[in-house]
């Protein structure tokens, strides 16, 4: 017979099996993956990825995302510029989708991850009222959707390839793709087990 408290049970992030918390080194009994628990471990990686993502997000907004070459004249549009242009043309739903996918979701994700990372080490005032597991779940679900803009640019660049009119991806596409990639990594390396320690 083993006696355990309910708080001592943890969920393997890989195979979802329930495990008993055994202190510093937890290994899942079903799939053998490590379940991190140690306080000084694992937030560093997540921080590093998150900071990289935030840095990459700056050029992503400053440089043009889409370059249109039309009859010899070249014009580029940034992410925000593209949204405003679509709004002025009257395609409101698409403008809203792009606005949410490439501006609201990344920034929301940065804020949630920053909040989770800070609150893991230094509990903030009204922490107990927030279900941090739900917040984390939210970032996991909506996070990948910010790739929409990169895919749209890739599709347009592949499709519009004429002698007179040509669409080329801009510098911001690389920066934005990297930013999304690193936020996804930051979210995946973040260990949900750490949330529980301060609840």
């Amino acid at each position: 017979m083993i006696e355990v408290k309910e708080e001592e049970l943890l969920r393997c992030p890989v195979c979802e099996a329930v495990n008993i918390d055994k202190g510093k080194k937890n290994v899942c009994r079903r799939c053998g993956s490590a379940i991190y628990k140690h306080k000084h471990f694992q937030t560093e990686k997540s921080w590093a990825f998150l900071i990289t993502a935030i840095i990459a997000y700056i050029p992503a907004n400053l440089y043009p995302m889409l370059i249109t070459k039309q009859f010899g004249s070249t014009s580029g549009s940034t992410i925000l510029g593209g949204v405003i242009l679509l709004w002025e043309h009257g395609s409101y739903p698409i403008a809203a989708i792009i606005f949410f996918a490439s501006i609201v979701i990344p920034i929301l994700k940065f804020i949630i991850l920053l909040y989770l990372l800070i609150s893991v080490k230094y509990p903030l005032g009204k922490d107990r009222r927030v279900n941090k597991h739900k917040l984390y779940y939210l970032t996991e679900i909506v996070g990948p959707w910010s790739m929409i803009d990169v895919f749209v640019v890739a599709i347009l660049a592949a499709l519009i390839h004429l002698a007179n009119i040509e669409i080329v991806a801009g510098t911001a596409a690389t920066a934005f793709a990297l930013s999304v990639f690193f936020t996804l990594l930051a979210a995946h390396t973040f260990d949900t087990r750490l949330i529980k320690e301060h609840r």
Partner: protein
Amino acid sequence: MKLENEEALDHLVICHKCHTLHQEIPLEDGSKACCRNCKTVLYRYDSRLAEHGLALSITALVFFVLANLFPLVKIEILGHEQFITIPKTFFSLFENGFYIVGIICAFMIFVFPLMIVLLYIVIFSLLKMKKGKKASKELLILLSHLSPWSMMEIFLVSILVALVKLIGYAQIHMGVAFWALMVFVLLDLYLTRTIHISEIWMLRKRLFLKEERQ
């Protein structure tokens, strides 16, 4: 809480959305168990999971091949006809020198979805034949590491967004691959979201436990 041994932990489930602890109960065939706190589906019971999964994943593979071979969209612009396929989307990024975006896109819309479908086929056929106790474990671990990186459904929405941007400039014709991609996305979502990975682990345990006892 008292437990007989570590094996008894298999009768517990933690909700992936809100981390509430639950005790597992036996279910009737085809029914599902929900979290009492947030109503998320925790697990379902399907006595023919391996057969159903295998059928769905092979269908998904067929539609994946179709979606990659034929043109997704054809447009007519100023008398010129242009079309794209899935591979052409990321190859044109390579041609323009966008190697990083090209690689990221290639993995997210081609390599990972293909690998995931193939992994499902291999895992379900191993479980169907009741072989490969160790291999199925390794493959299941690999699968759960890969599945967050497949972005086919996002690509599908991106196609629609790109086309709406082109309305007014060009005539648009949907290709065969677009419909194939749509079916593939639906099957992929069913395989990765509705069938929980823990259900496959439970099935694996049931199969190989029986074998050990005999």
